[in-house]
């Protein structure tokens, strides 16, 4: 039988030789872990995406509700710009430009927040509701979908809501990175925090890249009033 030279008396818990993995190995583990997590989340979003195609159809084929195209385009652009600033922050930290990273992260945060606001106020019609109630003004061409509007409402709020939850968690991550970056936690060589946050943020953007056509562009538009 093969044998390992062992020290039977020496199992005390205070020996520390294997405590932390070497940085390079830990980084590989972190990257693999993050990507596996994102791949796992793919199934969440594909589930919603599939539900959209499963439910949004009638006898003639795939349909979609008539939505305000300007609002959709604005939201999409704002998120894309935020992604640009995020990758800019990452390039900056790689080249040791702390100030630039900081500013870019702030821009990302602002753009991300704008996206969130546009979802809540424009897509979900909260702004319409406020304007209508307070001033009797209607700003958008199409009435926003309400949650109770059959499969339209369910899928629309399900998809945008689940995506918005991820945007919110991304924003929280950016705040954490900003605060820790301010304390000088990230260097040219070691900035896993920034990388993770950036990858996550872009991922949220990729999700929207698919959700945008699914919600706004694909299928025959159906005008309806409940």
């Amino acid at each position: 039988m093969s044998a390992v030279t062992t020290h039977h008396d020496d199992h005390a818990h205070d020996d520390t030789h294997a405590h932390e993995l070497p940085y390079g190995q830990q980084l590989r583990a972190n990257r693999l872990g993050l990507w596996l997590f994102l791949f796992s989340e793919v199934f969440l979003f594909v589930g919603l995406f599939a539900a959209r195609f499963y439910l949004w159809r009638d006898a003639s084929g795939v349909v979609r509700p008539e939505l305000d195209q300007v609002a959709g385009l604005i939201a999409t652009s704002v998120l894309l710009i935020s992604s640009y600033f995020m990758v800019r922050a990452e390039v900056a930290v790689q080249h040791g430009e702390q100030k630039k990273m900081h500013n870019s992260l702030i821009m990302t945060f602002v753009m991300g927040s704008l996206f969130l606001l546009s979802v809540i106020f424009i897509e979900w019609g909260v702004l319409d509701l406020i304007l209508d109630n307070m001033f009797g003004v209607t700003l958008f061409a199409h009435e926003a979908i309400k949650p109770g509007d059959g499969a339209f409402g369910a899928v629309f709020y399900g998809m945008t809501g689940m995506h918005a939850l991820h945007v919110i968690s991304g924003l929280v991550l950016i705040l954490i990175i900003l605060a820790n970056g301010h304390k000088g936690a990230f260097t040219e060589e070691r900035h896993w925090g920034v990388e993770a946050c950036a990858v996550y943020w872009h991922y949220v953007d990729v999700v929207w890249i698919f959700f945008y056509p699914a919600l706004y562009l694909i299928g025959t538009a159906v005008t309806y009033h409940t």
Partner: protein
Amino acid sequence: MQDNKRAAYALIRNVFLVLFVVSLAELAVAIYLESTVLLLLLASAKAVLVVYYFMHIYRLWRQEAH
């Protein structure tokens, strides 16, 4: 080093511009062609660009010598 840096910034800016143009193209496709397949293809193209140039997926199979 300096050139390297400038190239990096230029690259992401260009990718961003391409993404922006494709997004506009999507809207045009939706209005004039109404092709589901083409829209999904365009979305996939955008996703590939983001995953490669913004998320740097290639780092997964690269050994970092930090």
